[in-house]
């Protein structure tokens, strides 16, 4: 476990050296400016607009880290053979994958927390200085906290998929393309299935509907981690739903990282 911890620390430092955090701070400041300029254009539900902007910044920063930094660092290690240097020491390939994943998770967590903090501060400034700005209905800190945590968890799922594709293809561009594809499908599949099965908008054959249903067991349901509506409108959030969804996310990450480690273990590094 010490070795995993060491690799994750090195990855975290590498990410910071890569100026990832500077980029995050720029996104955070941009979102802060966006709050204070866009929100006064709305007269109602301004808290909802703030939640939309804040979470959009969080997701964009997280995706940028996952897709560019995460995939970049991993392919760089494989292509420049710096991974061989690590693996020549008493470090297993599974420990390497786990360490890299935890290190990059740390960077994403820092990014999410910085943006959330700046979002909260901007919200406070907005409520103090902008008369139109109001808190969302039934606002509670714990629902906001769960929302941020779920956002982080969905980014972790995307990162685990990015790891799997990077190890499978060993090509940064292909990996980025596939990861982004899975992200889009994961975000829209639930809606597509609902639309298709409702039959109001499009009608499909039973086989196609069955295939879509099968896909929902393979592709992660990222929509389940989107709690923006609950935060924006104070909708009730049940504890069983929260726990089951969190557990689903953790187990999904677990299985993908396990597969990544399996593939990486038997992969020949040229």
């Amino acid at each position, binding site marked *: 476990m010490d070795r995993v911890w060491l690799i994750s620390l090195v990855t975290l430092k590498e990410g910071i050296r890569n100026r990832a955090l500077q980029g995050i701070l720029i996104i955070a400041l941009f979102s802060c400016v966006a709050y204070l300029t866009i929100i006064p254009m709305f007269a*109602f539900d301004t808290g909802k607009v703030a939640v939309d902007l804040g979470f959009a910044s969080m997701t964009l920063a997280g995706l940028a880290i996952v897709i560019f930094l995460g995939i970049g660092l991993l392919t760089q290690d494989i292509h420049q053979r710096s991974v061989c240097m690590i693996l020549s020491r008493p470090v297993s390939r599974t420990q390497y994958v786990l360490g890299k994943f935890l290190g990059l998770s740390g960077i994403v967590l820092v990014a999410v927390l910085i943006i959330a903090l700046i979002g909260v501060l901007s919200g406070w400034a907005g409520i103090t200085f902008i008369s139109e700005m109001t808190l969302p209905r039934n606002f509670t800190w714990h629902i906001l906290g769960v929302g941020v945590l779920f956002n982080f968890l969905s980014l972790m799922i995307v990162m685990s998929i990015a790891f799997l594709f990077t190890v499978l293809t060993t090509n940064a561009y292909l990996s980025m393309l596939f990861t982004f594809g899975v992200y889009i499908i994961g975000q829209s599949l639930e*809606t597509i299935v609902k639309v298709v099965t409702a039959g109001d908008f499009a009608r499909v054959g039973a086989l196609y509907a069955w295939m879509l249903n099968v896909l929902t067991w393979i592709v992660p349901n*990222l*929509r389940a981690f989107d709690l923006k*509506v609950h935060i924006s409108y104070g909708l009730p959030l049940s504890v069983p739903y929260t726990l089951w969804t969190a557990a689903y996310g953790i187990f999904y990450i677990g299985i993908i990282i396990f597969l990544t480690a399996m593939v990486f273990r038997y992969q020949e590094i040229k």
Partner: protein
Amino acid sequence: MSGKRAIVSFFLLLFIISALLLTNSRVKHYRDNIPAENQRAEALMVSPTLLKVISGEFKGLWADYILLKASIFLGGYYESTPEDWDAIYLMFKQSLTLDPYFFQTCYYIQGLLSWREGMHEKAIELLKYPAQYRYWDWEPKFYIGFDYFYFLHDNLKGAHYMAEAAKLPDAPPIVATLGARLAQREGKTETAIGMLKLMYDRASDEKHKKLLEDRINAHIGILTLERAISAYKQTHGEIPDSLDTLIHKGLLKQMPENPFGDTYLYDAETGRVFFDEIR
């Protein structure tokens, strides 16, 4: 040589900056003077459902953007055409499909589609989304009820939505009283009484309670008179000439008390009873 290069670079930069400022000022000039007929509302011509599918987790933000786009056009003092309003209707529909909870869209629909453009049916169709999703909010249901009553003269549907709105926690008393009046106009006096009783049970202010009590009593009086008129019609095959006939014929022992006037008002042509002049 380096001095000469520096001078050339300086003048080149100066030229580029000047050219940029000049071209930008011309672009601004043309943009500011685009004829009104060229300023059209532009909706993305895709189905709202498809937009929801492709928006993913940014659907809330996308809804905000579409609404801002519509409001910028509407606030731009452009002359609008029926095609513009079709585009705006589509934008509102897209915005509501992406975020059916957003009250700002609901407010614009009522204020602009219904009041400004007279697209009442379309406004009602769209308002049904937030009315369903914003289950805690009386306003969308009130808007629908109001549109049915005021613009489409459908008191029955108006009363139905007013009654739904009146049941919600923060609904002001006017919703129930207006709903009761509409229901009574359509011969649904018992519904009107039920609606007022609901408000009475929830009211805490004594003054307000007294007002509601008077209204309930007025409607109970109307109900008594309506039942007597109905009995008279069954016996005589026609409605009575006046309310006093009901007493003369023994259908009523005495005239019910009207808390809002000396007596009840009666329309001898339709047989309808009112407790005040507002019909």
